[in-house]
């Protein structure tokens, strides 16, 4: 009865913006096309190669996990377009804050392949030097990194830089207080930050519909942040949307929110069994929209020799996979001294003492690492 007085949030969302349809046909969108004028065949081939490599990294890591070389792995299968498209829009001096699943992004940032899997092997709490590739190491606490991205962008604004930061997070994360506070702070300070939400439809076993009944992109407007909702399986849409957001950031226009609608085709992690909670049919429907096949089809429509491309890309992917595997297997286990390493920048006598006592304890063990039961008298 009182419907018309209410703002109507349930407005049916327009379909996400798509530049390349699943069948490979090219749709046009003036705003997005405008930022893609430089994307020629070579650039397309590179994007395609990146996606093939990202998928191969994923497959290889999954295999390594099965073989016991990794403790765990969070696959990105299905999300290659969202990750590669967005990451390739960034400048090297922009700064990335991601969750655990952005292995494709890390690859684009130029992570040393030796470092990519370290965390998942249990060798270290993080693999790479954040400042070497301007990307923070994977964040496990859902949503926490979005505030870091906003703070970083505030810093850029304060020190007069022209960089931007980008926060990657999932559809589940949008419920967390931190993500919403990040939106509020970003809007308040008009910070040069891009919120890149990969709506892969699932948060472990929870469907996105449990987190929100309206499109995630709509969340942003409640905070005064402009949003784009794109087909996340379309690498060109992801690239264009991120470029638009970055331009806005650099122009001093503040934050932008991108919802990339995609799908997690694999399990949440290698420890997950998605058959417990989702239907085969859903998976099959999304397989039709595979981001890689779509680019191949698009390349074909442009008259390019897809087989050749695929071969070259897979060749590259083979090399990367091999490097990944060799790098991992060559890794020596971390040293006991690393247990105590770098907790504090400055002196900490208590911890130093614990470390010293533990050294003594280890020294008291016999060669096979067993305790030698005491003989003789104790002293005090």
């Amino acid at each position, binding site marked *: 009865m009182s419907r018309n007085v209410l703002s109507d949030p349930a407005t049916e969302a327009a379909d996400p913006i798509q530049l390349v349809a699943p069948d490979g046909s090219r749709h046009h969108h003036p705003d997005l096309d405008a930022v893609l004028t430089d994307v020629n065949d070579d650039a397309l081939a590179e994007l395609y190669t990146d996606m093939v490599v990202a998928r191969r990294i994923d497959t290889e890591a999954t295999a390594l996990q099965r073989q016991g070389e990794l*403790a*765990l792995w969070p696959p990105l299968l299905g999300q290659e377009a969202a990750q590669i498209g967005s990451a390739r829009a960034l400048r090297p001096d922009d700064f990335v804050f991601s969750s*655990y699943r952005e292995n494709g992004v890390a690859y684009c940032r130029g992570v040393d392949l030796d470092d990519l899997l370290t*965390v*998942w*092997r*249990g*060798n*270290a*709490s993080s693999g790479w030097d954040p400042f070497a590739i301007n990307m923070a190491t994977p964040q*496990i*606490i*859902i949503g926490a990194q979005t505030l870091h991205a906003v703070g970083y962008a505030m810093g850029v604004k304060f020190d007069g830089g022209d960089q931007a930061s980008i926060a990657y997070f999932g559809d*589940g*994360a949008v*419920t*967390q*207080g*931190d993500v919403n506070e990040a939106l509020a702070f970003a809007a308040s300070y008009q910070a040069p930050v891009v919120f890149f939400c990969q709506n892969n439809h699932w*948060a*472990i*076993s*929870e469907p996105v519909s*449990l*987190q929100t009944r309206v499109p995630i992109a709509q969340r942003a407007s409640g905070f005064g942040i402009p949003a784009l909702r794109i087909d996340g399986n379309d690498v060109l849409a992801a690239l264009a949307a991120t470029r638009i957001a970055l331009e806005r950031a650099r122009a001093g226009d503040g934050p932008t929110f991108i919802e990339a609608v995609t799908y997690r085709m694999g399990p949440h992690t290698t*420890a*997950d069994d998605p058959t*417990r*909670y989702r239907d085969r049919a859903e998976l099959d429907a999304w397989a039709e929209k595979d981001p890689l096949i779509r680019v191949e089809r698009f390349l074909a429509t442009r008259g390019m020799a897809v087989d050749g491309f695929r071969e070259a890309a897979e060749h590259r992917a083979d090399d990367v996979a091999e490097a990944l595997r060799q790098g991992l297997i060559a890794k020596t*286990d*971390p040293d*006991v001294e*690393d*247990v*105590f390493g770098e*907790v504090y920048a400055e002196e900490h006598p*208590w*911890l130093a003492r*614990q*470390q010293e*006592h*533990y050294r*003594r*304890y280890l*020294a*008291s*063990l016999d060669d096979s690492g*067993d*305790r030698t*039961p*005491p*003989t*003789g*008298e*104790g*002293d*005090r």
Partner: protein
Amino acid sequence: MSTETAQREDARGTQTLTFGKAINAGLRRALSDDPKVLVMGEDVGRLGGVFRITDGLQAEFGPERVLDSPLAESGIVGTAVGLAYRGFRPVIEIQFDGFVYPAFDQIVSQVAKLRYRTRGRLKMPLTIRIPFGGGIGSPEHHSESPEAYFAHTAGLRVVSPSNPQDAFTMIRQAIASDDPVVYFEPKRRYHEKAEVDLGADLSAMPLGAARVASPGTDVTLIAYGPLVKTALDAAQAAADEDVSVEVIDLRSLSPIDFGPVEASVRKTGRAVITHEAGQFAGLGAEIAASITERCFYHLEHAPVRVTGFDIPYPPSKLEHHHLPDLDRILDGVDRAMDRPNSLTGLVEGGA
């Protein structure tokens, strides 16, 4: 209700159950005994939780009794508080120890204080289940032992079962309690099996009465949760060296049932306390301080703490260094017994 279900509910006999299944059985019993009991948390419904502790409960009791909560821990605890206002008894699952901190404000400022704030008019019969501790090879934030934070918070009760029988009994007691209870589940023990008496009488033992898990005369070894098993193994190994260790399983971390601890230390004059959490201002400090206060003239040696280090939880390839194991506990026993140990030769103050 299916016959199978009815059977399961009627089950009151003794069964061999894993630790995880024992909790599941306790939850099922609580859900069927009291319509006001709810189970809520991330992935607890369709999936049955990442550890499957709530497996089958949503199918049996429906999605309004066993709720998949949206992904936000403060939201979960905060809505549970509201449900308690409405007379419900929510049982929350926090997926892993390291994910409880976003809910810390609701737990510390609301759950713990509301009874006092309202002078007893409002009950807060929440149970907050937290799989905790290390040893399962997980990445960061999946192996923490945050019990001291909650033990230091007045208004909460904090417990941790060490075996399937206690897991079953104590989850039911926690849910039945009108106080909020943080129930720490030693996740690395989820797969250990034991006989569980499903007919065990709740009133026979108050929530969290400490127990002498293994009697002894030379030294008191105090443990809880995941390390009780390690402590029992250590006691056995010590016996081979003619040291008689009395192992106490605290069960309740706040309040601590101190009678058995006091009685034991007065007898042995020596105490070793072990936990996975870091040492500084950890629960071991309270136990050591209280032992000293209450048994000073019986002590032959200062209480010895064998704990995790004061570091963020290390990467899993290094966790075996951090976690107290049998040998480190025995070394602590040696120290308490004034037998040669790894610190022998250090002056007092090196212990």
